[in-house]
């Protein structure tokens, strides 16, 4: 509660600080605002920052430091015999005190000594919180007053405020970067642990994937990931064969031929396609597409399993169509009208202009779009899990059931796992491979797209 109170106080102080700062700036300008280095709202923001930031920092430090400090005081009051023990007993003692203090009973009658300590803890804690409210308010007021006294005509308030904003922006991007780094590192360390059990060459080049067999002793021979890689490749290729031509031609139609009414209807519909959850595509693939393909295959005299790479790939292709088409649509629209005019001016027809001028000019962007679509297809899990199955077959036959890297990861990490078996750790190896492949694809795609941008800006 006091934390909320102090936050509200600080917020109020910043608002007050803003108006005081702005008012003070107007005052020192003596009627001519142009005399100020910065416009008054920057002075206001400057004072608001001084009122808010130091108090917030104090709050953060206090919250982090208060618990241990109070606990140390409590422990100091306890008899020597209770405290002079090893670290583990001490931490048990601490949690006993904390539990009592927070009113959590462990069912036993509490030791009076500990009960006293808990009371003392609560007393100190309450005191500390009271102090915090006062200190926070004081810090805010001091900051406010300090900043307000610094306001002169020449104060470079804009520069100072913008520097503070700059730092805030850097912190935000650091969060994203550090999270990524953290994930990659954890992936890497676990993968290294996995490769210490299963040789990396067996993993990357082995032809047999059967993690269940690891429990019956034959660990080394059952983690060959090649069937997973080929399964992923097969499904991705099928998906791209569907998505790239359809998406690209749809984009050409949309940007070059469609009238405004058509476009205003078709574009949102395509975007709805992009908004359908993949799990819905998944059961569409498994319950509608796969049986249809099986029946068609049987009618044609082919042996088609009821879970097939073809069904998963086709549906995944449909899922990716809007991805390809909307990205391509953007790059096609970005081709300058001057190029089209130049071509028409030479007497070229619309289709000649599109084939010979617009598409080549947009090609880098289209390649980028396709690359991004590929990395999306590689990372797709749900559709494959539902429609293509779990059996790791090493085959290029689109009518057979195959499985992919992502599906294996998903199916292995279900439920409770023991964390040092090679079966569980194998997902980190797979994840690492997946990560590296999609990273390379994304980097290449971004490069290509960038090169394209440089040309027309």
């Amino acid at each position, binding site marked *: 509660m006091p934390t909320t109170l102090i936050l509200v106080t600080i917020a109020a102080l910043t608002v007050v600080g803003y108006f005081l700062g702005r008012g003070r700036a107007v005052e020192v300008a003596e009627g001519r605002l142009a005399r100020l280095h910065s416009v008054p709202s920057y002075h206001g923001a400057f004072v608001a920052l001084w009122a808010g930031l130091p108090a917030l920092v104090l709050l953060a430090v206090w919250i982090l430091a208060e618990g241990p400090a109070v606990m140390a005081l409590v422990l100091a009051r306890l008899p020597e015999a209770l405290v002079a023990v090893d670290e583990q007993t001490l931490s048990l003692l601490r949690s006993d005190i904390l539990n009592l203090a927070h009113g959590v009973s462990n069912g036993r009658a509490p030791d009076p000594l500990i009960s006293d300590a808990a009371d003392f803890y609560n007393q100190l804690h309450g005191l500390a919180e009271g102090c915090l409210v006062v200190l926070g308010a004081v810090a805010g007021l001091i900051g406010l007053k300090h900043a307000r006294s610094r306001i002169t005509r020449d104060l470079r308030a804009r520069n100072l405020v913008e520097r503070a904003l700059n730092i805030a922006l850097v912190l935000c991007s650091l969060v994203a970067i550090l999270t990524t780094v953290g994930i990659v590192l954890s992936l890497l360390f676990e993968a290294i642990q996995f490769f210490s059990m299963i040789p990396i060459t067996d993993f990357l080049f082995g032809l047999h994937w059967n993690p269940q067999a690891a429990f019956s002793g034959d660990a080394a021979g059952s983690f060959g990931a090649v069937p997973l890689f080929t399964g992923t490749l097969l499904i991705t290729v099928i998906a791209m064969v569907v998505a790239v031509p359809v998406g690209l031609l749809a984009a050409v139609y949309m940007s070059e031929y469609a009238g405004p009414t058509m476009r205003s209807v078709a574009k949102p519909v395509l975007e709805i396609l992009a908004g359908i959850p993949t799990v819905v595509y998944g059961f569409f693939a498994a319950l509608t597409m796969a049986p249809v393909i099986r029946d068609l295959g049987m009618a044609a005299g082919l042996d088609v399993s009821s879970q097939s790479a073809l069904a998963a790939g086709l549906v995944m292709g449909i899922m990716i169509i809007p991805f390809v088409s909307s990205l391509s649509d953007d790059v096609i629209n970005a081709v300058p009208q001057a190029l089209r005019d*130049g071509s*028409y001016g*030479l*007497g070229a027809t619309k289709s000649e202009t599109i084939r010979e001028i617009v598409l080549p000019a947009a090609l880098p962007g289209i390649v980028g779009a396709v690359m991004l679509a590929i990395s999306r297809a590689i990372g797709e899990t749900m559709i494959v899990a539902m429609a293509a199955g779990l059996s790791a077959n090493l085959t290029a036959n689109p009518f057979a059931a195959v499985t992919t890297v992502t599906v294996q990861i998903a199916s292995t990490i279900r439920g409770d796992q023991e964390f040092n078996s090679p079966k569980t750790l194998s997902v980190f190896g797979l994840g690492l491979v997946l990560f590296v492949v999609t990273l390379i694809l994304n980097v290449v795609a971004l490069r290509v797209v960038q090169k394209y941008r440089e040309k027309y800006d």
Partner: protein
Amino acid sequence: MMKIEVATRTPVGDKSLKCQSIPIKIAAMKVDVYYGAKQALKAINLHVENYRVMALIGPSGCGKSTFLRCLNRMNDTIDICRVDGRIELDGVDIYAKSIDTVQLRARVGMVFQKPNPFPKSIYDNIAYGPRIHGLAQRGPEMDEIVQSSLERAGLWNEVKDRLNEPGTGLSGGQQQRLCIARAIAVSPEVILMDEPCSALDPIATAHIEELIDELRENFTIVIVTHNMQQAARVSQKTAFFHLGEMVECNDTEEIFTNPVDERTQGYITGRYG
């Protein structure tokens, strides 16, 4: 070289009467252009003579570029644009149903304000037009068209060693000459130029102006320009446009020394525009 004939058609009584001269390549009669509800050109009558340079001058927004784009039906690409009246090329109405814009634009080429080379090699930039019109197949025949077009555009010596490099890598002036060469390559009869030098420095401009003068031997040229000195240097006839009307059309010398209309005088002496 030029035949002198009596004009077959006399425009309906107005100032453009002074433009009657012989032989006439393009004749515009009572041309109105609308962008949606807004009228951009009002009853334009104008004759362009064969193997001459006609300059269209006037303040921004006066409709001179709009008129230029009517002559090869580039305005067709703008949905809301509507053209009324009659424009004839060699006596044939180019807005007739039987006219194919593709063939029309092969006869009436265009060079734009901003150089717009295609993102292809210099060679392919030139070869594009002849190829789509089937004028030549790849090979020596095409090489010759490319070379002669570049020579006539005065660019050959500068680019002959790097025909396979992208056209976008040339300087602005070279790019514009490349665009002119590209237009020449389809052997049009008329070349429309929409402020071809406005994005260029004075030296590149001088190059293009010289080129225009040479091209007059083989092509009829209509050029829109903001630069009155340029109009005076390159053209034989000048038409002054103002607020969607064609105010005056006469021999260039006459227009600049002895304009009839007050508005023309005001514009060329720099009082407005």
